[in-house]
């Protein structure tokens, strides 16, 4: 499966700005209506971007409803979902504890859902629990093309740090089997993750990670990232290429051109001219 070179992201819609909390709140106001999100998505589509990578935020559900209602318009459009929307769960865990958060978010109530289906909870069927979570998160994309499904970095890096690599293997096989999609991984620790995935037999994985000239959010340092980009087998999607805005687009994307292995670049923007400019730069240098 080939990935588009240019992938449109969603941070700007959900008040995620790694450089400024203040700007992020301004964005929350700008995109308070779903129609404002759809308008920007359509602008991206008009300049030829057909892949939208987005977190499983509640508001994406409304965007999906709109896409299903307009199938002609979105015929070539693909979504790469990234799950879970971590802050939803993190705030719930702070408030309710881990088991409380599971009770709140797994459909119908995890405990009854599980006992209905057999003795899964009693035998601590973690893989079954993971599958329930994935299905709950993926529900909103029914009928929409989702060729790659990502786990968010906070979860990937948690599993990586805990060295529970078998969980990746289970995730990988479930995504392929149930959704007929490619599993993807977002991480802030690319070299360590790639080693971990290889160690459980996952070869040539799709990994979305920070790649930028100043080494921002490239844990372990820029040198080892560059070495892996040159030598190892994986399918990189570059994110945070502007280092949260510290780099100008041209120099940022020119840097990516040093690594022919990079298959795609993920970026977000709110104006059509900005989207077009960045897309042209990516196509020029990659």
């Amino acid at each position, binding site marked *: 499966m080939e990935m588009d070179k240019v992938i449109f992201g969603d941070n700007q819609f959900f008040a995620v700005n790694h450089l400024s909390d*203040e700007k992020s709140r301004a964005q929350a106001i700008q995109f308070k209506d779903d129609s404002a999100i759809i308008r920007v998505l359509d602008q991206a589509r008009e300049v030829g971007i057909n892949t939208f990578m987005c977190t499983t935020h509640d508001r994406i559900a409304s965007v999906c409803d709109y896409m299903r209602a307009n199938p002609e318009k979105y015929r070539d459009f693909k979504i790469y979902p990234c799950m879970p929307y971590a802050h939803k769960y993190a*705030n719930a865990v702070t408030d309710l504890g*881990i088991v409380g958060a599971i009770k709140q978010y797994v459909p119908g109530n995890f405990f009854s859902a599980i006992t209905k289906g057999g003795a899964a909870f009693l035998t601590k069927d973690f893989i079954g629990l993971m599958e329930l979570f994935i299905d709950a998160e993926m529900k909103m994309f029914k009928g929409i093309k989702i060729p790659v499904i990502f786990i968010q970095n906070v979860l990937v890096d948690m599993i990586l740090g805990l060295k529970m690599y078998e969980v990746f293997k289970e995730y990988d096989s479930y995504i392929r089997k149930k959704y007929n999609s490619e599993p993807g991984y977002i991480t802030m620790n690319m070299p360590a993750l790639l080693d971990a995935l290889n160690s459980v037999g996952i070869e040539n994985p799709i990994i979305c990670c920070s790649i930028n000239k100043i080494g921002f959010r490239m844990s372990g340092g820029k040198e080892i990232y560059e070495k892996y980009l040159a030598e190892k087998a994986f399918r990189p999607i570059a994110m945070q290429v502007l280092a949260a805005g510290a780099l100008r687009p041209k120099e940022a994307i020119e840097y990516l051109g040093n690594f022919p292995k990079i298959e795609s670049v993920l970026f977000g923007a709110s104006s059509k001219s900005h989207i077009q400019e960045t897309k042209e730069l990516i196509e020029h240098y990659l």
Partner: protein
Amino acid sequence: MIRAGIIGLGKMGLSHAAIVSPHPSVELVAVCDTSSLILDAFKKFSKVKVYSDYIKMIDSERLDFVVVATPTKFHYKMVRYALEKGIHTFCEKPFSLTTAEGENLVELANQKKLINQVGYHNHFIGTFRELKRLLKAGVIGDLVHFTGEAYGPVVTKEKGGTWRSDPGEGGGCLFDYASHVINLIQEIIGRPVKASGSQLKRIYSRDVEDAVYSILTLESGLSGILSVNWSDETYRKMATSLTILGKKGKIICDATEIKIFLKDGDAKENLPKGWTIKYITDFAIPVNFYLRGEEYSAQIDYFVDCILKNKPAEINSFKQALDTDKVIELLIADSKK
């Protein structure tokens, strides 16, 4: 390799486990929690030993350090046991429920010469460090006023109780959110010695406060405002900031940026007249493993480094966390007036 154990596998404990484990100088040997669900997950997927009793874990595992990330009411007995056994201890914030307990732990840690640190991670965010440096350099002159704020969406609906909803267990916004801001004020501007007009407001919680407002007076006599609310859903996640007004200018600082306004330029600092905005990209502390923010790894790196070099932690020591507990006590007493 030094040997580590984690006590308490809630959100912070899991996060610490995931950060400690990849540390190149540390072996995560054991974890401890009362939830069989969590422990079984470790049994199934990791090689770490699991315990449901921290005493058994400490007695059996020859640990060099522990991370205590349990509900605050358990900190005292767990930290005390670890220190008595000669184990370096990293404790989650807030430190203790009563200052008498806190004093006792500070004394014990110092007497045993053990590395002790509390998880006030904001001090490992580059922008707050830069703020401290700029204030020390006197760039905004004599201080006139400060505002310390934190807002976030933790409790946004009417509700009853988990451990966090019991005021006797340190479960409200004061211990959880406001403690971070008080600690920042204390370490960056100066130690608060008086709280006035304090209000602990319930918004959605049944038993604990969801917002904290107070006027704090520092040792220096400078006063300022504390304004914290964890029931504010206009914030996507916790947002903490300090605004400091001086005779020569003003600085507004949060985890992502530092905005400096100077009436006249400062040649030594290379800061022009008017506004200068600097971003975290210039100040982020490089880490080998990233989870949720550089600061979480950086504080563990610092703790491990202090153990390896056998030098007392100067950032976030038990003593500093105890000072914060004392301000919390002042604030509670004032709110009851």
